[in-house]
């Protein structure tokens, strides 16, 4: 399986670490909403089909990326930085120059 890192390009799956369901929302740290915390820690979407998930390019640029992958065929329909935009890539490049 090849995963296209938005920063590094297509790389073999062995360079990546799987971080699981990308639909979970972490409650605010001060939140005392137990149901929200329980859902965040334990509950997962587990679809047979397209799955929105987080991977980390652990053996590469270490960026966290959001991948939409089909759990039946392993076909990847999109990849993007996990936290939106190109902020981490831009920062990475700026640091490399200075």
């Amino acid at each position, binding site marked *: 399986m090849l995963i296209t890192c938005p920063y590094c390009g297509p790389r073999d799956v062995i360079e990546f670490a799987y971080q699981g369901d990308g639909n979970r929302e972490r409650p605010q740290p001060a939140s005392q909403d137990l149901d929200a915390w329980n859902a965040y820690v334990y509950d*997962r979407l*587990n679809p047979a089909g397209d799955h929105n998930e987080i991977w980390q390019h652990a053996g590469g640029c270490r960026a966290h990326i959001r991948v939409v992958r089909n759990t039946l065929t392993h076909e990847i329909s999109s990849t993007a930085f996990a936290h939106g935009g190109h902020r981490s890539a831009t920062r990475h490049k700026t640091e490399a120059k200075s």
Partner: protein
Amino acid sequence: MAEYSAFSLLKNALSGNKDWKPAWRKPDPKASYDVIVIGGGGHGLSTAYYLAKEHGITNVAVLEKGWLGSGNVGRNTTAVRSNYLLPSNTRFYEHSMKLWENLSHDLNYNVMFSQRGCLNLAHTPAQFDDYARRGNAMRHLGVDAELMTVDQIKRLVPALDVSGSARFPVIGGLMQRRAGSARHDAVAWGYARGADRRGVDIIENCEVTGFLRDGDRITGVSTTRGEIRARKVALAVAGSTGRVMQLAGIDKMPIESHVLQAFVSESLKPIIDTILTFGMGHFYISQSDKGGLVYGGDLDGYNSYAQRGSLPIVDEVMSEMLALFPGLARVRMLRSWGGLCDMTMDGSPIITTGPLPGMYLNCGWCYGGFKATPASGFCFAWTIAKGEPHELNAPFTLDRFYRGLFIDDKGQGATPRLH
């Protein structure tokens, strides 16, 4: 239906084996049943068997989307053991072990249960201490366990590299001698025959496509062979739990489905007379009665419903095998396959009433559903029949996560990929 016996073997041998009857009928589904069990694998079939045998509930249908035994019951590595640390797990799996020990007799079907032992290798002093602790915990609950020295291990498994120059030198191990293996197909067929002869309808090629409801209450299922009503609907669909629960409108559960690969080598003369597990990675190996080495390792590591695996894990499993058995370097791999594992967040199963009224749920077997087959069916049947758990499965609820009572045998926290 005929009993299997020395006499029936002889009689059928003399008549050219033409008169054997099918082991189970192929009935059409009735309009309604007392209980529908979704899933014709080991757990579903054993549930139906114990419903009939222990509770006299015989108006039961087992619905299987494919053919009998096409799912996980035929996609495992047939290991049976009860070497757990936490009391709720130990008691449950030991009950399973006791059922295994009498299963061929109980079913009048040879499941080829072979108590060849299960040996966990230790490679560090801390790991050896940990095994001593686990062994003590097991013995406290009346389960057999013994620590083995390197010399004993060398005598038991001569092919194993126990030298100091091994990549991960072996310093000891924990052995459960009553552990072993069974023929997985025979387990499915034996339970199917046992349930069928007590009146259970086993309906193959019947996929559940939705649930019939009366308000919140589940009152039956719609299938590719029509609607079937039931007072109680029980799910035992292992790796497909997420998919089937979605049909009932529940899309989030403390479960992820992953694929676990297994491998068989070409046949060899006997070299391993036990089940061996590698303590430094994740690898286990045994030898089948036909001579093939049966082995496997880690999950592929990401959600999957594909019943096949990926190459990086093949690579990893083979290198772990060679770390233990350098002499097997030129043995050829015959085939590999993948089974679906519904991994829970604490690595322990779920056998429970609910989560919807009229529904009963049996899932979350992670890597280890095969050894649980008899106790799982026994406890699930009890839960279905009485509407409350047996004391052995009372801890295995769905809400244990939310109540802080999870059963984390490995102590690795809320993650579905480590257990």
